[in-house]
């Protein structure tokens, strides 16, 4: 169990994630993808009348099981990792973030930006609720996210996925270099 109380290098993490592409095809004959579950949650629990949500979500119930289990996995690792020494994030990134106003570097998530309390600040609302909203809107508009497009789609040689991934990255650069310096000052 010791392995779960330390951080893993990319050459362990990446190949394990890659194996989910064949695993899900063999198991349920569907592609590896996470963001489709946002639509499933809407269809199953909110039941909007819009045509986009009229489909047989029950046939894809395995996806909801999968993402609920991801949260459990996050809970388990979060517990075992709580006392782990922090992994080495680039010193350059940390000094730039520090100069932009990030203060808490003690865990994976800057607690000064992502806490209950920060939800009462404009900065926190933009990062947490605003960022989350764009993730849900954009992934469905693009028909996939990092798992469905960047990993499954590129691994199966799909042009749409290469274009989508380039655009994901462009969006991230816009946030990092244009929006974050502004938002972090709020």
């Amino acid at each position: 169990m010791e392995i779960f109380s330390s951080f893993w290098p990319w050459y362990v993490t990446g190949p394990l994630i890659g194996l989910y592409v064949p695993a899900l095809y063999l198991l349920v004959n569907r592609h590896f993808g996470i963001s489709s579950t946002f639509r499933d949650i809407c269809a199953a629990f909110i039941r909007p009348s819009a045509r986009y949500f009229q489909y047989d979500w029950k046939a894809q119930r395995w996806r909801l099981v999968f993402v609920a289990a991801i949260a459990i996995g996050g809970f388990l690792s979060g517990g075992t990792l709580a006392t782990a020494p922090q992994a080495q994030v680039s010193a350059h990134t940390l000094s730039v973030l520090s100069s932009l106003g990030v203060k808490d570097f003690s865990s994976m998530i800057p607690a000064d930006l992502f806490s209950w309390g920060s939800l009462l600040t404009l900065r926190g609302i933009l990062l947490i609720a605003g960022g989350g909203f764009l993730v849900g809107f954009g992934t469905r508009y693009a028909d996939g996210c990092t798992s469905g497009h960047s990993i499954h789609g590129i691994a199966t040689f799909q042009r749409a996925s290469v274009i989508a991934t380039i655009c994901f990255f462009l969006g991230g650069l816009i946030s990092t270099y244009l929006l974050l310096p502004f938002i972090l000052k709020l």
Partner: protein
Amino acid sequence: MVYFIVMLLGIFFGMILTNGEVTSWFRIQEMFRFDSFHMYGVIGSAIVVGALSMLLIKTIGVRSMQGEPVVIETKKLGKGTAIGGIIFGIGWGLTGACPGPLYALAGCGYPAFLIALLSAVGGTLVYGLVRDKLPR
């Protein structure tokens, strides 16, 4: 049986994302600032392993557990691929989490990410409502 395996795989996936620091806001920042190979290594090696194993499945003609031939699902290319892609990318840069890590972080005990996850569901809800008016 299938659900049980899916559940185990899901739990392990949440652990991979967390132990592999894919859930780390700092690692995602590091990636967008081109300061480290970590995330490029994760995504790149995942693609290589995924591609090789799918080629193997296709070559041998392995069938799924339901006994069906494996059919690779195609992603549609349209204006949404680019516009939606950039919108998601902006959200990814702000939250530092793509959809998988959103679930993992919500479970990990970061309540703010429960709100981010609910906001993502809200984003999909709004997308579904305005979809017919968007360029495709």
